[in-house]
């Protein structure tokens, strides 16, 4: 059913602080995830599954991979005449400052969309903390509470220097948003609901401070705008760099974790492809792994995630690794504790071996 209460706004220009070969040619939001997805699929699917039909999307400077993947929103039911997906150039260098996701300047660039709507609320999201949530529950809670902003958080299970923590006071009111997050802190999952009128007020009020993050700008004004918190009890997966990317991906190999992210009544949508079902040849040996369509498996795969169109030749062995689109692991090669970016060929009888503490990362290859 069409959501008449809310429109959406997503920032896809978070750039992170950790240098990585995975991010040399693509923004974080375009990182491939679990074989066939990209991170941006998750915020978009959450919006679509809540019936939100109008979404503004702030793009990074290197937006090509996102545009190729998302297109005009058709695969997300967002290719519409009324509403739909509105992409626009966000800050091209991204939001690299610690904890910053919602640059005021980007929000202001999208002002026309906020002004044209008559929905009372705006759901705001980043693209590097992913989850599968019934947003309508949160929108309803926000509406009942009557506050200006509702910020979503989880209890942090680990340290994240590039996440933000919420200091929460009486009646769940957020007093402060601070960079960095330790175990047990209230970790902001880069998602909040805001009254549309309030957002337009803030845009007008802080126009001269447009170089600030949204929550930096209103830091002195939290009480007046009435910022509430909402604890999300489900799975939220934060991707800040190679290490968290690898670890969080591997955790999904447990069906109990996987089932929290993938639910039949709230599908994660993504770009459709014409890849054949994966083919297992006689003698293949695969266990505890995700394998995507278009792959051909002759060899051995253990505790790994294979993207589309990966070939694992006979006698090749892939263990504890993430293999991206179009890679070929040649006869007798061995890949262990590694992330192999797309279109690489691992030559015969070679080894790419990292350790659990030092995952080996191989950047994009040149196979066509």
């Amino acid at each position: 059913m069409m959501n008449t209460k809310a429109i959406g706004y997503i920032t896809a220009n978070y750039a992170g602080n950790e240098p990585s070969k995975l991010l040399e040619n693509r923004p974080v939001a375009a990182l491939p995830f679990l074989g066939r997805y990209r991170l941006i699929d998750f915020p978009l699917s959450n919006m679509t599954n809540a019936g939100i039909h109008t979404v503004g999307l702030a793009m990074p400077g290197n937006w090509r991979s996102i545009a190729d993947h998302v297109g005009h929103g058709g695969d997300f039911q967002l290719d519409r005449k009324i509403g739909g997906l509105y992409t626009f150039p966000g800050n091209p260098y991204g939001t690299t400052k610690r904890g910053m996701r919602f640059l005021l300047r980007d929000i202001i660039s999208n002002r026309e969309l906020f002004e044209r709507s008559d929905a009372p609320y705006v759901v705001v999201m980043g693209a590097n903390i992913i989850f599968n949530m019934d947003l309508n529950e949160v929108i309803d809670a926000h509406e009942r509470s009557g506050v200006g902003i509702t910020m979503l958080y989880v209890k942090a299970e680990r340290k994240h220097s590039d996440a933000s923590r919420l200091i929460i006071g009486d009646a769940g009111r957020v007093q402060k948003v601070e960079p960095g997050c330790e175990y047990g802190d209230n970790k902001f999952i880069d998602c909040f609901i805001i009254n549309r009128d309030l957002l337009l007020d803030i845009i007008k009020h802080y126009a001269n401070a447009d170089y600030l993050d949204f929550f930096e700008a209103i830091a002195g004004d939290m009480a007046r705008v009435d910022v509430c918190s909402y604890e999300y009890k489900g799975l939220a997966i934060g991707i800040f760099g190679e290490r968290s990317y690898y670890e969080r991906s591997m955790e999904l190999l447990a069906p109990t974790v996987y089932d929290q992210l993938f639910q039949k009544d709230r599908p994660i949508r993504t770009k459709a492809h014409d890849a054949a079902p994966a083919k297992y040849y006689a003698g293949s040996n695969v266990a505890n792994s995700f394998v995507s369509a278009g792959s051909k498996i002759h060899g051995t795969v253990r505790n790994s995630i294979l993207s589309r169109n990966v070939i694992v030749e006979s006698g090749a062995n892939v263990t504890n690794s993430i293999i991206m689109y179009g890679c070929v692991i040649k006869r007798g090669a061995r890949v262990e504790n590694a992330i192999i970016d797309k279109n690489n060929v691992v030559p015969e009888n070679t080894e790419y071996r990292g350790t659990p503490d030092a995952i080996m990362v191989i950047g994009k290859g040149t196979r066509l």
Partner: protein
Amino acid sequence: MARKECIAMLLAGGQGSRLMDLTSKIAKPAVSFGGKYRIIDFTLSNCANSGIETVGILTQYRPYQLHEYVGSGRAWDLNITGSGVSILPPYATQEGGAWYEGTADAVTHNLDYIKSHHPEYVLILSGDALYRMDYREMLKTHKEHNADLTIGVMPVPWEDASRFGILTADENGQVTKFSEKPAHPDSNLASMGIYIFSYDFLVNALEEDAINQRSSHDFGNDIIPKALADGKRLFVHAHHGFWKDVGTIASYHETSMDLLGEDPLFDLFDEKTPIMSNDSSRPPHYIGPDGRVDDSLVANGCRIMGTVRHSIISTDACVGERAIVEDSVLLPGAIVKNGAHVSRAILGENAVVEEGVKLGSVDTTKDTAVVGNDVVIGKGE
């Protein structure tokens, strides 16, 4: 509307009753095949890969799932304003409604559709076989011979020839004789049910046939024999490569198995002529810690906790722990529960084999076991 050189009419109206329980609720072309495809995908992909961008799909029997699946034709890049795919069900006129009485009759009822595209040639197809073909090559043959009608044919083993409609042709490929299942065949060229007509001849032939009270209004039974008798220019175009009808349970199973092996008879992976389908955005499949998959195709969304051998596991199907699936086809959403054992079977969409149940037999002299869509097979059965 701009003139099109060649448009296609795809006959998708038949019930496909020989597929038994698999077509009790849906039309044959919409039946799942090959893990993530439906039977019509192969013909529509051939059209797309041959650059044919106008395809009328003639439907009649329980077409709803087929209509939903074909949709706007986007999955085959056939969502083109003013052409692309068009669904053509039977319809009523001022004179009342008329069902399609035969393959030719179905096309006759849609002559207005054909005329609106002003084609020079019309390609007649059916949506129930597995093959790759560049129809442009056949069109070239047709044009070279300045033919009225060109028939796609397949050389079959001589001993099988008496099971087919057989065309006898001279050294130039001109058809001299057409015999339906001849006892003593003098040719081994079997008709594939693929025709290219020159537009004027098609219109004349169909209009004459429509008023012929003794006609069964079928291309094979009526139109071709009449055209031959009338001395029209009929030619064959030989297809070399894989072609198999999937219209019976036995051929469906056999053809499914042809997708497997080191060097399969039909290769789903050929990137030059991709098989396109209306994909469902499901996650990659998961093979569990004790999963074991051998010589099989496994589609997205599956969860394999047990053993799969020489089988096709379609989208969202599940194989439980300690379960065994061999020489079988699990259609989308089929579930084989823990400890069950399925051999030489076809499980329909969302069919369930309960825990510990044994179904089917590896004995190839026995019929393939078939479980209908949504059917649950418990211990007692």
